[in-house]
């Protein structure tokens, strides 16, 4: 149970490495978790081979949502957009290293939802993007 607030999560929450807004950017998306009021914005720069050269996030919310955004953004540096499309919820849980109940899972997966909606170029983020 104490894992939920393990040092890694608190550290990424308090001192995120990839907090910021890229301007100009190639991909930009943002969304809220209406349940908690968590907000995540992700901006990406990609090269001509659709490889991510830079990624950053902005937002506010609980430790789980913000730490998972920082860890996720860190993990996608250098990945191609096709690789990002393959990411699923297990990837985020592995990054956090914890199991989560249904309510907090939404906090943890907000950043992945935002990322994939942006990469797919969707108008609106949907839970289906992160359900598997």
């Amino acid at each position, binding site marked *: *149970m*104490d894992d*939920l*607030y393990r040092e890694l999560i*608190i550290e990424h929450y*308090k001192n995120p490495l990839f907090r910021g807004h890229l301007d100009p950017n190639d991909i930009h998306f943002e969304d809220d978790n209406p*349940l*908690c*009021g968590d*907000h995540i914005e992700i901006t990406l720069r990609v090269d001509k081979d659709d490889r991510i050269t830079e990624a950053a996030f902005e937002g*506010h*919310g*609980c*430790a*789980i949502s913000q730490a998972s955004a920082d860890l996720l953004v860190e993990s996608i540096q250098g990945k191609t957009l096709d690789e990002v499309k393959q990411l699923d919820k297990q990837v985020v849980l592995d990054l956090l290293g914890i199991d989560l109940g249904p309510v*907090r899972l939404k*906090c943890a997966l907000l950043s992945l939802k935002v990322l994939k909606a942006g990469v797919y170029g969707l108008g609106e983020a949907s839970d289906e993007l992160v359900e598997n």
Partner: protein
Amino acid sequence: MTASLRSTTLDVRKIRADFPILNREVRPGVPLVYLDSTATSQKPQVVIEAMDTFYRRHNANIHRGVHVLAEEATAMYEAARGQVAKLINAPSAKQVVFTRNTTESINLVAYTWARANLRPGDLIVLTEMEHHSNLVPWQILASERDLRLEFIPVSENGLLELDAYKQLLEKEPKLVAFTQMSNVLGTINPAREIIKLAHEAGALTLLDGAQSVPHIPVDVQALDVDFLGFSAHKMLGPTGIGALYGKLDLLDKMPPFMGGGEMIKTVKLRTFSSNELPHKFEAGTPAIAEAVGFGVAVEYLMDIGLETVAAHEQEVIEYALDRLVEIPGVRVFGPESKHKGGVASFTLEGVHPHDVAQILDRDGIAVRAGHHCAQPLHEKFGIPATTRASFYLYNMKAEVDKLVEGIYKVKEIFN
């Protein structure tokens, strides 16, 4: 009133023994510290048993049956209505309509009285501290009927600004709809004064009693309020049932709400005539067992006395506010304790309310985190969410101590 004869101090240990859930451990060795009664209250054994007995011995559909069970069920359902009427000092039980909850009570008024009486351009006055349930029904109606909405502002210390209200009244609103007690700030609004001023300006009034009716004495005749809505589940009763009180002449003239069985007198293929009050507004089979439970919950509260309940909560909230403000980084919202009920919403610097709530949960402390269905109010204070601890007749100061200890643990984890 027999209030003066009653003891004004509550034997909390005795009360707690009436609530089976308060004995449970949320995890082995971790007792429940339930500080979330503003969301829903716990239920005493007598309420649980009354509904159980209803299903074991009396269950039948009400009103038209002539068999013994139907007569018993009808009598129990109507007795519950009588009990609820007594609680709020309604002149007659037929002025108490059973609904699903406060939300449905407010929607009922919006869909019937307001649709029949409001014209494009008419003004409804609300407040900035409303729960979404006393906001969204009026927004829907306003966009449909081209009505105007204005809001009584909330001051920095969580009180309604009555001077601004008086100015709004000069615009001649048709309805003033407001909460008697804020579910976030705990503020108890001066309902009598607000209603009196509204009437002088020619407006009707609707009171959201979801938080007030469970916690303080509410007398509809003394308030002279036109409509009052409240929910059973926040006052020791079951979910799925609430009530709407209305003045007789208003209810009489209002068109029905939902159509169906029970709300009719006669039905032909193309027409119907409405049943009498309160059945006109109770289409379909209602929540009968829940009504019975509601009645018993009201009886339980009246036996203790709402004055006594309020006095106890006053004592607990005063203590809670004193303890909370001691904690560095804690900011409590709402007025000082003399203007509020047992609600303490706060933020802790550097920690999101969800994390606060989650860490408190480890010690069995149940609080709520979020915007508590009052998003505009949180926006006003410039915060996305708060952590809310709320108190009822079964809460003890020792539980406030546990909350405070828990908050210190949160600080430790995040430092």
